[in-house]
Structure formats: C-alpha cells, structure tokens
C-alpha cells in the first residue's frame, strides 16, 4: 500500500492551481514530476559541492566523483546489471539509442545486413536505425502489431535470417501502453544469435527491471521519465559489446593516452562518456531511484494498475469514446478519441479544466497511420495520481463532449 497523501506532498508541482482549478497532471508519459528529495538535494549540491568529476585532486572534486559513481552503482543495483561498468551515462533514451546505432553499427553492420524494429516504436527507436541502414546500405525490417496493440510475435522468426544483426524493440508502447513480452522475444532472437536492444523509456518507471533475467543485450532509458532531472539517461550494455564497440564520441575523460598521432581509449564505461558528463543529472537519477526504493516499485506498479483499470472502466462507459491500445498487459497509459472531436480540441478544453494530457501523434506516426487517425488524447498516470484525478478526467471528457456535440 502507498500513502498517497504523504507522497503528493513530496511533489510541489502537483499542489497548485492551473487555470483556477486543482491541477491534474496526466502527462507522465512525456515527463514525470520531481520529488523535493531530488529537487532539494540537487540545489544543495550546487550550493555546497559542485566540482567537475574525475579530473580534480581537490576535495570537492573527489566528493563530486564519488556521488557520480555512487549513482552508477545505484542504477546497476536497480536494474540488476552484472557490473557497474555496464552502465553508461548518456543524455537520454534518444542519445543511448543513437550511441548503439552508431557504435554497434560500426562494429557489426555491413551492406546487406538487416535490423528489425517493431511498428510501434517511438521515433527515437526508429529513426536512428533508419539512418544506420541508410549509412551501411542495410535493410530495416518491421515486426507488425495487431488492432489491440499487441505485437504479432509469431511473425518474428520469419523476419530473422542470417543477415539479421539486431532487434530494437520498445518494452512499453508510449502511445498505446502495451507491455511487450520482451523476455520471450529476446529468447527467440537469441536462438538465432540476434542481439536485442530494449527501449525502456516507458517501462523503467512502472515495473521491476532485471536486465540479467531479461537477458537483453542493451537496455536504454531516460532519467526525466523516472522522477529525475532532464538531460540524463542510461545505456546498459553487456560487457562483451562494450569492449568490442568503438567509441561514439571523442573528447576528454574517455582517453587513456593521447598524442598527436594516436590515441588509446579507456575501458567502458568511460570510453563512452566523452567530455564533461551531466554529473548532476546522474546524481539526481540516483536520488530518484532512492526515492522509488523507499516506496517500492511493486507498490507503484500495483497502484498504477488499479488506476489503469479504474480509468479504463470509467472512460469506456462514455458514449462515442474509443480507446486505442487494448492489449492484455498495459501500463497506466490510455490513448483515446471522442467521435467527431479533434484530439487538439479535446486537449485544449481539458487544459482549461486544469487537466494536463498529451495530444497528437506522440512521436509514433506509424502507429497513428495503422489506426488511420492523426493523433489521440493520451492520459498517462503515475503513482502520485489518485482515483479523484481519474474522475476529474472523466468529468472533463464529458464536458468536452457537451461543448462540441
């Protein structure tokens, strides 16, 4: 059980009025709010500790480095990686995918090779692979999904052949909420010796992630979607790949020895962390993980599933409302449309009622094309949302209907 009253006090953004109404924040799929435990500690860091990491001999630089590396240790533990050196700090999910698309691509992908993605990927786990394929004259193959928003996994083996190098797949669809059975899919891919990257941007905040149990080769996520700052993300990769892959960017802090003729690189993770990294962001991610651990990711998952069920049931009763994404396993994300009412109009009125939702294609235009729509209204719940928030959404939708009908 979670103590919502106590939790909501930890998130100052939630406790205000927007457009004169108590704020209902249901855009957690886009970004999550930050608890005071993160906000205050980050402010305190700038006030008392700030120094660049890894290169200073002085006291605060050592402390700063310790906090940065401490965050790496927390993340390793949080996702159960085997080693800390398998945790690379990046700018975010997009940056992590681009890193793999470049470095894995340089090492393993040549002309005629194939990469597989699903048809429900966020553009950030689609475009980097398209770019890689263009660069290497490789081929991108697509794993389809059905009308409920579930992947057609039985089609996967027929997409794999000797040329297939990697499968890049989202764990949870950001526009439909589908939780993909990634463990089973990874097993199939590995049977054919195909490496697998899992986009965890929409799963890390909702369920326990165990990368060793999943046996994924790469797992990527963003800090800001799991209650930490923006501009920090993680790439988990198995050590064998990190050793074999060339660096993504060159610069300071990633080199072993530099002369004007030749440079040798440090080992992972530093090989992939060129320049001054976002060490404060990394620190904030460690703090956010501490916060989640005090509540318990299982408790978070339970409450969010209750919210999903409650809101889905209530919304389904509204005449003319269609929910897009009705998979059996979903996160607390509901995409919907009202008959003959544009998603933008719906979102505008909900905003006026103090309810924040996302409208549009959610960076998944192929998903919208599949359903032959231009966008949806997406309500995405986090563990600090209440049943009253779901009620306010339902009331708001009914008001929209009344205004436009």
């Amino acid at each position: 059980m979670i103590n919502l009253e106590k939790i909501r006090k930890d998130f100052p953004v939630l406790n205000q009025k927007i457009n004169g109404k108590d704020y209902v924040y249901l855009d957690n799929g886009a970004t999550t709010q930050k608890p005071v435990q993160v906000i205050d500690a980050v402010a305190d860091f700038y006030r008392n500790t700030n120094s660049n990491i890894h290169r200073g001999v002085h006291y605060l630089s050592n402390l700063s480095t310790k906090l940065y590396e401490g965050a790496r240790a927390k993340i390793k533990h949080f996702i159960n990686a085997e080693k800390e050196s398998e945790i690379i700090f990046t700018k975010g999910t997009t940056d992590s995918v681009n890193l793999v698309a470049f470095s894995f691509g340089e090492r393993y992908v040549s002309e005629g090779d194939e990469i597989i993605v699903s048809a429900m990927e966020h553009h950030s786990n689609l475009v980097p692979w398209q770019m890689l394929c263009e660069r290497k004259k490789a081929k991108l193959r697509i794993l389809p999904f059905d009308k409920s928003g579930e992947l057609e996994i039985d089609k996967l083996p027929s997409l794999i052949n000797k040329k297939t190098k990697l499968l890049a797949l989202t764990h949870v669809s950001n526009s439909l909420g589908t939780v993909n059975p990634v463990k089973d899919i990874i097993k199939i891919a590995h049977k054919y010796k195909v490496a697998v990257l899992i986009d965890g941007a929409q799963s890390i905040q909702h369920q326990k992630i165990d990368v060793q149990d999943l046996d994924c080769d790469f797992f990527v996520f963003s800090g800001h979607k799991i209650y930490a700052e923006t501009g920090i993300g993680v790439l988990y990769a198995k050590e064998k790949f990190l050793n074999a892959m060339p660096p993504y960017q060159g610069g300071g802090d990633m080199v072993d020895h530099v002369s004007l003729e030749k440079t040798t690189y440090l080992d992972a993770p530093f090989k992939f962390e060129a320049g001054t990294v976002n060490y404060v962001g990394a620190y904030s991610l460690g703090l956010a993980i501490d916060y989640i651990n005090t509540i318990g990711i299982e408790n978070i998952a339970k409450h969010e599933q209750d919210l999903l069920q409650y809101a889905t049931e209530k919304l389904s009763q509204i005449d003319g409302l269609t929910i897009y994404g009705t998979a059996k396993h979903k996160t607390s994300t509901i995409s919907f449309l009202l008959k003959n009412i544009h998603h933008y109009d719906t979102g505008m009125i909900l905003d006026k009622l103090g309810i924040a939702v996302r409208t549009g294609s959610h960076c998944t235009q192929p998903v919208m094309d599949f359903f032959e729509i231009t966008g949806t209204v997406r309500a995405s719940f986090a563990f600090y949302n209440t049943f009253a928030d779901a009620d306010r959404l339902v009331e708001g939708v009914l008001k929209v209907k009344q205004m436009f009908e």
Partner: protein
Amino acid sequence: MTIEEIQNEIIEEFSMFDEWMDKYEYLIELGRDLPQIDTKFKTNEYLINGCQSKVWLNAELKDGKIYFTADSDAIITKGIVALLIRVLNGRTPKEIMNADLFFIDKIGLSENLSPTRSNGLLAMVKQMKMYGMAYNAKLNS
C-alpha cells in the same frame, strides 16, 4: 472599417465573456459557421502543416483585394481561423503585409499562437502575410 477597427470590435465582443467556457463556445460557433472551403483546395498544396491540427488556406486576388478561404480539422483552430479571415478579408495586399494583429493577444488566445502549440495558426498568419507579399509583388510588376 479598418483592420484596427475590426480588431477592436472583436476585442469588445470577447470582453463580454466572463467565463473562459463562453469564449471557447463562441469560438466553436465561429468555427462551425466558417464558410466551406472549395474541396479542390483541401489538398497538400494548400495545407499549412501544424504538428497537431491541420489548416488549409487559399487566397485569391479580386479588384486589388485579397479574399481568403480556409478550413481546419480542429474546431477551436477553425474558430480562430474565422477571426483571422474576418480581420484580413477584402484588404489590399499591402494592408495585409503590414497588419499588426494585436487582437489575438488581447482576447487571451495568444497561447494558441505560440510555436510550441504547433497547431498551424502561427504558420497560417505567416502564410496570409506571404500571400499579401506575393500579390503585392504581382500588382507592382
């Protein structure tokens, strides 16, 4: 009426609404009442691409004045489009080029014009002025 006078008239109309709801209901009404654009203009060529709502716009020059027709797939957007047309329709290219559209801000709809809203309206204002420029050049050539 001048462009400025029509804008002041709109501002006065909107000042009668105490509730945001009434304002939006009025916009919805305006959107519904906007004369249909000829379907031959509802093609990609006339589409002003916004990220979320689409706007189609056509402009024709008659007796030295520009006449607009437009449509949008979102009604609130369409309502604002109707207001823009009311202000700029039947004006000379030069008037349109130099128009200062202060009413949008004054009636509290400027949020609809911020680039992050990506609803195509900002692009529509730009496109209307582009038509002004293009027809102005044509008249002077």
